[in-house]
């Protein structure tokens, strides 16, 4: 009986891995980043990102923490109602758009837009 259970569990695990590796889909961005790579540091004092999927206040903390870890980011303000994330930047050594987009990727949410004034 135990051998049957073990065999069943092993087959289920193998099947699950085979299926999931073929159909994994993790949406992390809807922004065209090809233009980001050629752009240098952001010139304005703030940048506004629109992020989707932040289901709760503590979830939003992941975005906070990842963005604050980017050199040149001094503060982050989040409005869960609109998904708007305002990033405040230092006087010098400001980050690039790519760095901000990568930080949102690492937070596990979806970047929808990135704009500067």
């Amino acid at each position, binding site marked *: 009986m135990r051998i049957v259970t073990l065999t069943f569990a092993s087959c289920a695990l193998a099947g699950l891995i085979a299926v999931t590796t073929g159909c994994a889909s993790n949406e992390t961005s809807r922004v065209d980043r090809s233009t980001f790579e050629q752009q240098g540091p952001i010139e304005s004092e703030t940048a506004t990102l629109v992020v989707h*999927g932040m289901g709760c*206040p503590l979830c939003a903390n992941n975005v906070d923490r990842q963005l604050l870890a980017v050199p040149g980011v001094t503060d982050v303000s989040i409005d869960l*109602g609109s*998904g708007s994330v305002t990033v405040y930047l230092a006087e010098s050594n400001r980050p690039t758009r790519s760095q901000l987009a990568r930080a949102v990727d690492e937070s596990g949410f979806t970047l929808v837009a990135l704009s500067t004034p």
Partner: protein
Amino acid sequence: MHTLRTLTCLAVAITAAAIPFDQAVAQEAINSPAATQPSTGRWVVRGQFRHLDARESPRTGDERIRRTTQNLSIAYGLRSNLSLTAEVPFQQQRLRDGETGNVKRDYGIGDVTAQVKWRIHQHDFGPIDTSRFSLIGGVQLPTFMRPFSTESVNPMLGGVYTHVQGLHGFNASAIFKLNTGTGTRNNIGGGDGKADALFYDASYLYRISPATYSPETSGGALYGVLELNGLYETNGDNELFLSPGIMYEARSWTVEASVQIPVWQDVDRRPETRLVGVVGVRLLF
């Protein structure tokens, strides 16, 4: 043996205290998992006290059983869609012998669970709206502390789906645990006996306040929680709980409380659970 147990307790406590507290992810129910996880390089620490009151044991004749468990779980984000979680249950229990009336108390650490959560589906369709599915795989490692340890290595595998839309959150999960040993003496609460176990859960969370998020109200939320928590064991035992609860999340801390009420019990090989009370605190530093 006693010295070894004390040393192990001390080592685990020191290790737990040394790990830095940070943030947590939420819209998670209180007694069941969600397809949420810490982001890359981040820690989630969760402490939960569970008090369980059970009926007499059909196996040992113990008449009144009370067990208090302090679960300490620590999760680390390996990648944005992959996390590692370790859970350590600090336990104490009080058993009254049905024949002699003698009371026996035990303290110790139950088996440690290590789990990997891998999110394979994510669709974020609004500022707070998301649907996610994660695979959960792990292993229960023995501490060899009687009567809390199964004294065997028990693998587990399952999946969890989470859907958050507006004020509503929904989670559904199933985790199968293969018990490779003879199990604990009383199998209190279930899942740690000789038979294999299937944990099946569904939960609904309703955001009571704020009704709508704004920059001023994005700092906290109050949720009403209703869960169905089930445990089926391959020896035929099956137990289903209805678990109402309440949870408040701030940006740096969370409190949660729940009661698990048995609504369906078909249990012959372990003590039936009368009631479970749960209080959890998440402190974020």
